């Protein structure tokens, strides 16, 4: 893509958010909506500046990102192990998969009461919840990727007398890699959503969710809006970063010449 075309597509991408911000600003200033519910942008900006200057916003963001990352690492790590086991073992697959497919129908937020009973409301409970959110898409996508491995390539491994470990390293894992990366990408998104959910429902300790709650309790709409904007921006950046990484990590993806 040429740079002018890239600018053009960026320009088109910006139309909607800029339009929304303008509408927001006009609605707020014209008195069309109550300013208490929809404060003008400059107020939100001023609050952002204050929170930044006091260090509270960055502290909250750091706390949220830290538990997001922690939950993601533990959750996706467990997800890879469980996914490998379920994908490679016919018995485990038969015994567990139906049960697991039922389990994933439970809305993620419905786990919160259970997790808070088991683990309390502090850091541990939040990380467990975030980890659960991250593990599920990793397991599902990895199992699917392993099951979709070409039978013909498996035969090549048989011809070369691959053992169990060699099959995993040289056939199943690389074959499932595109699927696994999709799962990890989803896990990143889910983990961030779960981070905010955990902070909101298990309110204890600093975090972006805490900022939103504080704003609501003080009826400080600027603060609520600021929190929402930060959550959205982080989510957006995580998604974009993951897409970029995915493209870089699979140089053979253009390959359809499989047979």
């Amino acid at each position, binding site marked *: 893509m040429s740079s002018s075309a890239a600018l053009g597509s960026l320009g088109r991408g910006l139309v909607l958010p800029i339009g929304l911000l303008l509408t927001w600003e006009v609605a707020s200033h014209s008195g069309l909506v109550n300013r208490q519910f929809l404060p003008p942008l400059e107020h939100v900006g001023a609050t952002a500046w204050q929170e930044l200057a006091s260090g509270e916003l960055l502290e909250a963001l750091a706390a949220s990102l830290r538990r997001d990352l922690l939950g993601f690492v533990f959750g996706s790590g467990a997800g890879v192990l469980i996914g490998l086991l379920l994908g490679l073992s016919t018995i485990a697959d038969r015994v567990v998969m139906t049960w697991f497919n039922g389990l994933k129908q439970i809305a993620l937020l419905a786990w919160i009461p259970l997790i808070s009973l088991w683990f309390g409301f502090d850091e541990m409970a939040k990380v467990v919840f975030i980890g659960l959110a991250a593990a599920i898409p990793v397991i599902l996508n990895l199992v699917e990727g392993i099951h979709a491995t070409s039978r013909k390539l498996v035969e090549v491994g048989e011809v070369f007398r691959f053992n169990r470990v060699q099959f995993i390293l040289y056939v199943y894992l690389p*074959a499932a890699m595109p699927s696994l990366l999709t799962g990890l990408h989803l896990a990143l998104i889910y983990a961030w959503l779960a981070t905010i959910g955990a902070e909101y429902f298990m309110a204890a300790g600093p975090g972006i969710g805490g900022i939103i709650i504080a704003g609501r309790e003080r009826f400080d709409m600027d603060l609520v809006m600021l929190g929402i904007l930060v959550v959205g921006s982080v989510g957006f950046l995580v998604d974009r970063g993951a897409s970029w990484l995915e493209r870089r990590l699979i*140089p*053979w993806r*253009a390959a359809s010449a499989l047979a």
Partner: protein
Amino acid sequence: MNVAAQLRTTAVPDHGQGRLEVRNVSKSFVVNGAPVEALRDVSLDVAGGEFVVLLGPSGCGKSTLLRLIAGLEPEFRGSISQDGNAIAGTSLDRGIVFQEPRLFPWATVSQNIALGLKNAPLSDRAKREAVAAHITLVGLDGFAQAYPHQLSGGMAQRAAIARGLVNRPRLLLLDEPFGALDALTRARLQVELQRIWAHERITMVLVTHDVDEAVLLGDRVIVLAPRPGRVSRIFAISAPRPRSRTDDDLVRIRNDVLRALGDGEEDGSGGTPISGPA
């Protein structure tokens, strides 16, 4: 020729002769709940270093027979042995090249070939040398670092042949290896395969439905009849090598083979497949 020298230094100690014995082999599949007989009572002997072609129309079980010899199908009746040892599963002593290259799409040409050596009893250095030597053998110098999707069909099949040979098997099985290639590439690779066979002096068993290919390459052409698959005739071809497809002897034998296939009246020129491409 320094390739030859390199190959010799990486050679694994004596593998035996690459003799193959197929005795009274029958094989059935279950299709839609009903058993279908793919092979009935097939017996054949292949001498060490011989080039044997299994020829027949689609459905004659020639690929099934090759897969049984490779050890990819565990269940069959009868016995198959290589150099006196009954085959049980796959073995590094038997290489195979499939109709599709079946290269791992995530690995480069040299990595693909090196994967064939994972369980070979060689030092890392010897493995590297064997990979490089086989890339040269099949004429892929300069493409060692290419991914499969960057290769043409012919180049991918060359890489697959290198991978099939890299363990220095005494027996190489080829399952319609050129069936999916265009006519020019196919003709060129047939000549290449003759050269490689002469160079390696190993046993080769090639499955094809192309009569020209069969008589060009084979010391013997074993014609299989379909439903159920069984040996119908065997042609010995003593024309001197290297052969050219326009040799009078070959043209005469080709016509004999075609007649044996009940297809004698057809006076095809150029490639004469018995059936459409599989």
